[in-house]
């Protein structure tokens, strides 16, 4: 088998999507459907952020498509006045793939949850990331199955007591950011549902990224997993838990920046008081670094107890996208075919034919 080099496209994520000068408001993206999530659901906050963020893109509304799978979060498309498809469990990345390949003029978004994306749809997720499809995936992670009424999910903590694990879960969870980085994702970000500013910034950069963007959104299920991320929202030690990333800056956090991230003896990263290690020891965050090692280590700072939870953009690198590559091949082949004058009749006839001629009687 031979290999050929594919070009790296120098395009932004939305560069082929038609824009409009007409002013847009969040209301323009609000469909006539009544939102039916439970009161207090984190999905409301995400919906509000997305509705108010989309006008900023200045895209023609009809060129935006939201595709979802199954689960509470997957009702999302119904509440946005764009094109949308509420598909089947776990398959949204696959459906979005076909749409994105065949329609470069669309901004394609996938809305999914921890069960949808990481359990039943795990295969499609990793392959969409690996191929670097030009889609933006919003992974709502509430660490529980909500729509089926409270079973543990592939991101639930070990030991979690749920309807299906009355003695506690013995199932080791996925770390979605680690998984995405391992699947060669070119853009990985994380935000908290209630942090509109942080979430919007991650969304902005995810949308602008050409290739697959995975955004993990920590999101609360008030009915079956209430307060699961409260330690990141309130209390005295929030600032000691949350580690917001700023590209090009030393990774430092705490109420007064008293903590920092340094290289550990094991080859990874660890949190240390700055006073102990000195400012010079702090690692600088570089989202554009091709080597994903540091991004991966950052994703491992946070264990399931959320002691050190990194938010922001872990990784943002350029790599050829599948859809651009596939379209380039079709375009090149089409141009060659036109030059050669290929047509359907010639294809059907082929090279090896024989003629059965009419007999004299038939001709007469």
């Amino acid at each position, binding site marked *: 088998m031979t290999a050929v080099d594919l070009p790296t496209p120098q395009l932004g994520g939305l560069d082929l999507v038609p824009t409009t000068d007409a002013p847009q408001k969040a209301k323009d993206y609000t469909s006539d459907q009544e939102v039916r999530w439970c009161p207090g659901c984190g999905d409301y906050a995400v919906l509000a952020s997305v509705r108010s963020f989309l006008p900023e893109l200045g895209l023609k*509304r009809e060129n935006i498509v939201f595709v979802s799978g199954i689960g509470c979060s997957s009702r999302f498309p119904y509440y946005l006045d764009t094109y949308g498809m509420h*598909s089947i469990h776990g*398959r949204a990345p696959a459906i979005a*793939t076909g749409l994105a390949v*065949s329609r470069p003029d669309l901004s394609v978004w996938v809305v999914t949850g921890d069960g949808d994306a990481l359990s039943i749809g795990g295969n499609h997720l990793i*392959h969409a990331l690996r191929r670097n499809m030009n889609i933006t995936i919003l992974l709502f992670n509430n660490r529980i199955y909500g729509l089926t009424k409270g079973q543990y999910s592939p991101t639930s903590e070990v030991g979690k007591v749920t309807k299906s694990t009355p003695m506690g879960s013995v199932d080791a969870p996925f770390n979605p950011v680690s998984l995405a980085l391992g699947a060669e994702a070119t853009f990985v970000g994380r935000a908290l549902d209630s942090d509109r500013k942080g979430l919007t910034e991650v969304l902005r950069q995810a949308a602008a990224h050409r290739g697959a963007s995975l955004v993990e959104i920590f999101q609360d299920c008030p009915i079956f997993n209430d307060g699961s991320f409260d330690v990141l929202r309130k209390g005295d030690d929030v600032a000691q838990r949350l580690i917001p990333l700023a590209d090009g800056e030393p990774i430092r956090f705490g109420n007064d920046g008293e903590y920092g991230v340094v290289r550990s003896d094991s080859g990874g990263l660890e949190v240390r008081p700055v006073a102990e290690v000195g400012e010079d020891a702090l690692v600088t965050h570089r989202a554009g670094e091709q080597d994903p090692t540091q991004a991966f280590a950052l994703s491992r700072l946070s264990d399931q107890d959320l002691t050190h939870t990194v938010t922001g953009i872990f990784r943002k690198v350029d790599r050829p996208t599948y859809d651009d590559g596939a379209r380039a091949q*079709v375009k090149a082949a089409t141009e060659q075919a036109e030059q050669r004058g290929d047509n359907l009749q010639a294809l059907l006839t082929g090279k090896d034919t024989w003629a059965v001629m009419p007999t004299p009687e*038939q001709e007469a």
Partner: protein
Amino acid sequence: MSTDTEVGADLPDRLVAHGEIRQTEVRQTHRVVIRFAGDSGDGMQLTGDRFTSEAAAFGNDLATLPNFPAEIRAPAGTLPGVSSFQLHFADYDILTPGDRPDVLVAMNPAALKANLKDLPHGQVLIVNTDEFTKRNLAKVGYESNPLEDDSLAPYQVHQVAMATITRTALEPTGMSKKDAERAKNMFALGLLSWMYHRGTEGTEQFLREKFAKKPELAEANILAFRTGWNYGETTESFAVTYEVAPAALPTGTYRQITGNLALAYGVVAAGQLSKLPVFLGTYPITPASDVLHELSKHKGMGVTTFQAEDEIAGIGAALGASFGGALGVTSTSGPGVALKSETIGLAVALELPLLILDVQRGGPSTGLPTKTEQADLLQAMYGRNGEAPVPIIAPASPSECFDAAIQAAHIALKYRTPVFLLSDGAIANGSEPWNVPDVADLPDLSVEFATEPNSPDGSEFWPYLRDDDTLARPWAVPGTPGLEHRIGGLEKADGRGSISYDPDNHDRMVRLRQAKIDGVEVDDVTVDDPSGEAEVLVLGWGSTFGPIGAACRRVRAAGMNVAQAHVRSMNPLPGNLGDVLARYRRVVVPEMNLGQFAMMLRAKYLVDVRSYTKVAGLPFQAEELAGVLTDAVKGDLPA
């Protein structure tokens, strides 16, 4: 030659003196069945393909049956490793690859053992003696060498040391002994080409192109091929050669085509005729992978192919492309259909066009990947949750796959529905001459996307407001301003398309979806009954057309009346089918499953059809079906 004579070929062979060029006697015959059999690594499929091309180029009618193991290279010399290619060519229109060979070429003891039972006594057996070693004989359980005992006495045996002769001939090329012997299949092809007066230029040209990057291999194979030809010419062991005149087929330009190639061309054509981009989302699976391979060559004709991570993603991507306004296609076999079922259900709910090409193989589970079967019919009919009707088209021959693909696309686009196309391993890999259609005669499949709001007051777009005639919903593709809408797998309100849990609405929507498919326009079934007096009807579907037709010719030739009809639309069934069934005293339904179509007919028409079934991984033989039909005519068929 022909022992299992088809009607039209039962004239006595004429002896023709032909002394000018050859000393050998030349006989003219109407039809010949040749089977090349050898080890998987012996190149039997290639050899068969080449002979087929020569027969096609000569103007014979032909039909082929490749038969090979699922393993790429089973252990050499073993029974599971035997690969064969049967070719039937004739000077008149034939319907099957032939029940039994007139000539069997056996490259090793395993090939002999596996195939000899099919060779009628008195017919020609050409054996490569080099492989008949003690070790190879023991491998397949021969206690004594059949070339030395009298077990082959009933046949016209030609023992040829093909490997040795080929190796010797290739000595001047300096090739290794092993490499030289690998060309022995070309020796066999050369010998058979001589026996049947086939040209040599086509094969030589083919070899030069195939080995264009390794000219030394091309020349070695050509040398082996010529050696085989000269062997026939110069040795006196072959007393007779045979001529099969071109067939008097309908006028036109012909080419040879396999079912999978025709299927791929049909998809390309459907894209061109609908002016839509084609998007194939698929996953490799035997025996459907050739459709992917072929379509991936036609990017220049607007075809995008996507090899997905699994069967589910393949169809998911195809459906996503359909949502975006492409002709979404997925290709697979039975196990893949099982995985795609949920997405097919989604496509039923979304009411979007989608082609599902199912090249059936033996099941259940992995079953017999390289063998044929028709046991996906009920899976295609009913293999989804809920009431999820899907139209089903079933081509009857390799070349019909082309028309079937266009028809399936036509239905999918017109009615906004997934459509099944049920091919099978026999017609997928089998080949026949194809009267190449004039593109100008092909139907226009163009579609109109929705562009305007359609609600009664003209202010909104209602995605489930149906066309009065077809019951199809509008196809509004993303990028169309003002028609932004959401669709999905949840039940939709009739018309408006918003989510609805209303009981009456669900009942209405289930019935509407069914009515839409029931209303798909399909051709009436035609009945072939030359006598007009038949009391027995044989009704088939799919690839059984050939053997059933050949069986009918035999039964009629024996002076009995039998009517034949063949269904190409399995859902909905032809509108006249009930009337046709009612006209006959007895209806026989042969199928390569355990009676799936028979069950549908009994359920729908309350007709006591007689089911005749076989699931051997191979097509029916004309001879066996002729026996079944004879029994039916005579009233001896068991209930």
